[in-house]
């Protein structure tokens, strides 16, 4: 059975970086979103297992997505991947229910380690 993954980032390069970092052993069905609004449209209509979420984005940012997921009781594993590495920001996303905070640019081994920690590998 495949894992449904959504990668949300306004940068095409960043989306590709995450996509290429997904381990082959994880059988995935991957969708992409360019901002928080696109991501929420998908998250509200489909069952997604893992969301890789950028924070600084136009339209609806990453915090907005996390807040909406919490308000609407949409449960899934969210891994935040952001350049905004301020400790307070990391605390905020964890408080809003993210599984982990990963700094950009995303490192393959760190991504895999986090997927393993949370039982996806």
């Amino acid at each position: 059975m495949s894992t449904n993954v959504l990668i949300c980032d306004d940068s095409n390069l960043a989306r590709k970086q995450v996509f290429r970092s997904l381990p082959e052993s994880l059988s995935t069905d991957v969708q992409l979103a360019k901002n928080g609004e696109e991501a929420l449209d998908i998250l509200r209509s489909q069952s997604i297992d893992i969301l890789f979420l950028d924070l600084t984005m136009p339209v609806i940012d990453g915090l907005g997505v996390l807040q909406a997921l919490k308000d609407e009781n949409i449960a899934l594993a969210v891994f935040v991947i952001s350049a905004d590495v301020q400790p307070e920001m990391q605390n905020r996303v964890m408080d809003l229910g993210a599984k982990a905070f990963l700094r950009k640019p995303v490192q393959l081994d760190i991504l895999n380690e986090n997927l393993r920690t949370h039982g996806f590998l």
Partner: protein
Amino acid sequence: MNAFDLTEDQQDCLQELINVAMGQASDQLARYLDTFVYLKVPSIEQVKSEHLIDTLNQDLKETAVVSQGFFGYEGIRGEALLIYQPQDSNRLADLLGYEADELTFDEQIIDLSSILTTTFLNVFASQIDNQMSYSAPRLLSANLGTVSEHLQQQSFNWDLALKVRISYQVTDYSFNCDMVLLIPEQAIINIKTVIDRILEEF
């Protein structure tokens, strides 16, 4: 067609390199000011040098400009200008809340600028496998003559500059500063080569 014309992919890649650099610069700013900084997506545009002087001219009276040169390998070099608008440098004074016996405001704004510039450029450089060294930062007195004279003294010629507008929103305050990277054409060509290499990997 000039050296600054970027394809959509090149622009996207440059934007992402800048996002990562900006994120860490903001983290330093947050630590320095002991506050939280809201980040927005930065804008990147090219400006003609004479137009840059015009922009400065509009808000000249109390504009503070801090200038610092940077030098990397492979001919990647330039001058970073941090430009504070009048209302923002006043807010900054409040924010820094310096005491009379501590550093002067001039010293503090130079410190702050240098932290932002070197953090930003170090992170930017590390992503393109480069390493920067820096000249001492200088606060240019706020008049057009001094700024344009300083720019003309640069050892390179530039007609176009890369202007990265980074907006830092600090809790309770809002201050913006423009970071302008003046990068000579040859250095831009080298940066584009590196960007193409990164894009090929993905």
